[in-house]
């Protein structure tokens, strides 16, 4: 079997040209998990260590105020002026600098995409990138950035209630993102990872027509910037986003993450979209991982590889989101073991 570098192997998986092995991205945050068992945790670390070191990803986001401990939680302020809290079960934004209205823009300071030091730590890692695939994050890309600034319910209705102000703010965020994309590509990133959760468990948060009207052209601009320079477009979209998936493919999406089986029918995804874009994720953290048996976890891994990986590539192994606190360690062991079957 031909051995490819990580970079080449991911490229082949994404472009349906016969990767040498199944690329896999798994992660587990032990402090989160309810079950504690040193022996099993050691086993998981050992299994994780067997996967090739073929990938590097990073987020160049900056903070105005770094995380500090306040009681049982950590609190910080990001560069957009949004306050965050992490209380042991995931982080959440807890203030919105423009919530009071667009008048607040008068005294608002936008972050500088070229701020000194933004890529300092990343550059140090990249010095030894070797043949790893480099995925550059442009996270909380557009909709999420906008609602973090304005508040969720405000942002859902802004395109109708404040069309001009909304469009101006949206375009400012896009400009910021384009500058981040350029800096990543200048550093030789192989792909850019965008994120916006447009789906709920049942469907889209806004109608597909409105999405096309208010947001699609912005994604088209950002995706085009990436594709122009030969890099791949990855995007994390939670929930059921089938309604806009053909649009995303049309404007250049290469890799879709995280694929929630309880929100989207996997058979349908494979039938209608398999071979047109690469699927990344899919092992059900809302069901099988939490309530299933290790045998069911293994069967799900095999099924995903069969459904999406059969197009001379087209699948990157992973879970349908972060592994949840209630997940039994035995299921995480089964997850790693099942994906390890596809190692080179």
């Amino acid at each position, binding site marked *: 079997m031909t051995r490819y570098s990580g970079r080449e192997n991911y490229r082949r998986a994404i472009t349906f040209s016969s990767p040498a092995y199944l690329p896999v991205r798994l992660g587990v945050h032990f402090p989160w998990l309810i079950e504690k068992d040193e022996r099993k945790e050691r086993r998981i670390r050992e299994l994780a260590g067997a996967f090739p070191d073929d990938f590097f990803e990073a987020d160049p986001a900056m903070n105005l105020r770094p995380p500090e401990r306040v009681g049982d939680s950590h609190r910080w302020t990001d560069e957009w002026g949004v306050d965050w809290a992490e209380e042991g079960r995931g982080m959440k934004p807890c203030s919105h600098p423009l919530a009071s209205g667009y008048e607040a823009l008068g005294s608002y300071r936008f972050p500088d995409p070229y701020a000194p030091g933004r890529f300092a730590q990343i550059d140090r890692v990249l010095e030894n990138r070797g043949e790893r695939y480099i995925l550059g994050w442009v996270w909380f890309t557009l909709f999420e950035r906008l609602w973090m600034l304005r508040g*969720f*319910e405000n942002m*859902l*209705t802004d395109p*109708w209630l404040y069309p001009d102000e909304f469009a101006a703010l949206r375009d400012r965020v896009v400009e910021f993102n384009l500058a981040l994309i350029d800096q990543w590509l200048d550093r030789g990133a192989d792909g850019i990872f965008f994120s916006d959760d447009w789906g709920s468990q049942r469907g889209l948060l*806004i109608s597909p027509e*409105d999405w096309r009207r208010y947001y699609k052209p912005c994604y088209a601009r950002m995706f085009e910037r990436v594709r122009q320079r030969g890099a791949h477009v990855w995007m994390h979209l939670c929930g059921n986003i089938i309604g806009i998936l053909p649009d995303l493919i049309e404007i250049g999406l290469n890799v879709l993450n995280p694929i929630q089986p309880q929100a989207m029918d996997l058979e349908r995804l494979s039938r209608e979209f398999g071979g047109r874009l690469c699927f990344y994720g899919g092992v059900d953290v809302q069901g099988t991982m939490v309530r299933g048996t290790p045998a069911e976890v293994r069967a799900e891994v095999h099924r995903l590889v069969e459904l999406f990986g059969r197009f001379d590539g087209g699948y990157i192994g992973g879970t349908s989101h972060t592994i949840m606190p209630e997940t039994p360690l035995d299921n995480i062991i089964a997850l790693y073991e099942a994906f390890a079957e596809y190692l080179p």
Partner: protein
Amino acid sequence: MELRQIYEYTVSGNAPKVKELTEQALAEGVAPGEIISKYLIPAMAEVGDRFERNEFYVPELLIAARAMQGALAILKPLLTDTDLKPAGKVVIGTVKGDLHDIGKNLVSMMLQGAGFEIVDLGVDVPPEKFVDAVKQSKADVVALSALLTTTMPSMKTTIDALQAAGLRERVKVVIGGAPVTQRYADEIGADGYAPDANSAVRRTRQLLGLA
């Protein structure tokens, strides 16, 4: 003026128009209760139906609710006791440990749109606070929301607290949220479960014998 326009502009979420027409209707002597019961409530029912049929999404629902609330702000102070009785009083909140509020807010808006009086306790609400609110407001219904499997048990502790305070027989309890099911509702002794905002209204009306 054509009063039916109040209905139409509420459905399409045109708040300035709804406000203007409501003021005009009042000036022409239409009773506040009539505007609410004949136009606003049916408009919100239509919005809920379109939401359930996936013709409307959350933004349309929020915009319609905003138009309705604008009219209610004018009409409510003018209501007399005999004019229009609320369909019932609902204490609503997201249970202790859970900070999700959008689903709860949508249910709250739709209940308000169906003529219920709402006491919204917000998020991360401890059982004692539900108990106090039921005592003070003499509510007919308690609506509990949870979005996490780890916070669902707080629904049971809230029901237990209502029981311990001797209030359980006086109120109906409805529950909802992504991980919640009818089976879970049965298990913890809730009276009803609803998978979305519109069916929450329907279930609440059924429980109070209004539908």
